[in-house]
């Protein structure tokens, strides 16, 4: 059995006072790009540490590429690549020395698996004599990815590789992941909901619970309310005005629109337009839209 199997994993800290993960069960298929989507404190890093054999779960079982995370932990460590959320390379070694170090640790060489990292390493090559601590954020991230790949792992774990990274660098990072996916199974976590659509399947996770697991498109299709986008000339005032309407179920800012659902779930915009007009708004625009993953996440959070 390859891929990843997770069954009923629980993990707590501080003698049970903080429940980090509750009954987590799911599978990742071989060759899949699987996303763990959730905010800080959701339990993403805890789950990564259990799967990468750094922590023990309180209960439950898990296997990576058919290997048990407890009984066969040493074998798992040989076939996985792990890029933790914090930059964990040697700051006072150069780019090339870091890569050399990780290759040697896994009894291999840069040359042997160069094909896998070539696309990424080419961008680092001009700086190969620079100390890792002196690299820019984007370059550090690329080096960390190369180091996690240098032994040609079967499964790659990436814990928030794009946090704090600007939107353009984030897009480039995901393009790299899409190319790598042809070679290995990838589990990646992110707090950015817009990155969910780039995964084959995602788990939405919050406070140690999985809210939903599915393909991004299926999660969007499962959104069971009519979603309206609403805009007027006074958006600050509009939020409280819309929330005051008794028929409104939820109302959140979304860029230059509000996203609104109603209790009766009607598909008629006119009622909403009339109610907003009565509150002295002008330039009113109301339209029915497709939800995004972030709409789904917030709806699921409110159900919890």
């Amino acid at each position: 059995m390859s891929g990843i199997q997770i069954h009923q994993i629980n993990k707590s800290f501080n003698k049970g006072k903080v429940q980090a993960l509750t009954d987590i069960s799911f599978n990742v298929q071989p060759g899949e790009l699987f996303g763990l989507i959730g905010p800080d404190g959701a339990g993403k890093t805890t789950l990564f540490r259990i799967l990468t054999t750094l922590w023990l779960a309180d209960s439950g079982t898990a296997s990576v590429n058919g290997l048990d995370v407890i009984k066969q932990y040493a074998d798992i460590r040989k076939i996985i690549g792990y890029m933790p959320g914090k930059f964990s390379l040697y700051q006072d070694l150069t780019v090339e020395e870091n890569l050399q170090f990780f290759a040697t640790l896994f009894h291999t060489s840069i040359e042997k698996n160069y094909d896998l990292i070539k696309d990424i390493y080419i961008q680092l090559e001009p700086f190969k004599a620079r100390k890792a601590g002196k690299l820019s954020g984007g370059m550090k991230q690329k080096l960390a990815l190369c180091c996690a790949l240098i032994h040609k792992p079967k499964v790659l774990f990436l814990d928030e590789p794009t946090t704090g990274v600007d939107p353009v660098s984030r897009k480039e990072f995901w393009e790299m992941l899409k190319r790598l996916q042809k070679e290995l199974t990838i589990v990646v976590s992110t707090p950015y909901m817009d990155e969910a659509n780039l995964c084959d399947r995602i788990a939405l996770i919050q406070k140690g619970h999985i809210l939903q697991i599915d393909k991004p498109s299926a999660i969007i299709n499962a959104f069971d309310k009519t979603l309206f986008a609403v805009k007027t000339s006074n958006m600050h005032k509009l939020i409280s005005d819309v929330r005051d309407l008794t028929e409104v179920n939820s109302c959140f800012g979304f860029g230059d629109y509000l996203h609104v659902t109603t209790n009766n779930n009607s598909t008629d915009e006119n009622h909403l337009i009339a109610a907003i007009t009565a509150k002295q708004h002008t330039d009113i625009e109301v339209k029915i839209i497709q939800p995004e993953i972030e709409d789904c996440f917030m709806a699921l959070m409110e159900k919890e």
Partner: protein
Amino acid sequence: MADKVIITENLTKKFGDFTAVDGISFHVNKGEIFGFLGANGAGKTTAMKMLIGIWEPTSGKAEVAGYDIYRDMENIKKSIGYMSQRFSLYEDIPVIENIRFFGGIYGLSRAEIKEKSAALLHKLNLTGESKTLVSALPLGWKQKLAFSLAIIHQPKIVFLDEPTGGVDPITRRKFWELIYDAANEGVTVFVTTHYMDEAEYCDRISIMVDGRIAALDSPAALKKQFNAENIDQIFTHLARGAKRTAD
């Protein structure tokens, strides 16, 4: 000029032969929410650090809250609030001691601190939690407290450096409602973010590329100017043209 709380003119910062901020000129109006955007390494942190008095500029002029940034830095510090990436609270001391600490740092008298503490605890619904360690508070409460403390001395301007990174989507939106409230009370808000949807909540935004301001206007005007559907498209268009990659 009374309605402009930040004015810069050719503001420049060099580190050796590297020009981090390259002659930026802009202003921020009183009471507006001003979004300060840019890719990693574009120079926004450096620019912000000059405005809040952490770094002295290499050249150029700037006034913050009516004070010159070379001569009157101490007065500027009293007129501004600052909330850094994530939270600036002390996790291992109680809520009430955080309030006293920040009140003291921002120069409030003992009597003022006493009065403000009670009002703040009441406003944030934290009266029963005053002796709770900050580390035990839910994320959303911490964020409200951190923001309230950054404006406890009623500053003219509050600087928020990526205040919503990693926060869940509902808490993130509630935080923006706090920003609106502060702006409605006349506080000018200067905010950096990597969430492009949040840029839309600002009255005006600037986008920095390679140390310069490549675009500056209201979100609606920028979308018209660049013929774009959203700010993300404009950001991508401008940042892809960047020459430098250093942080």
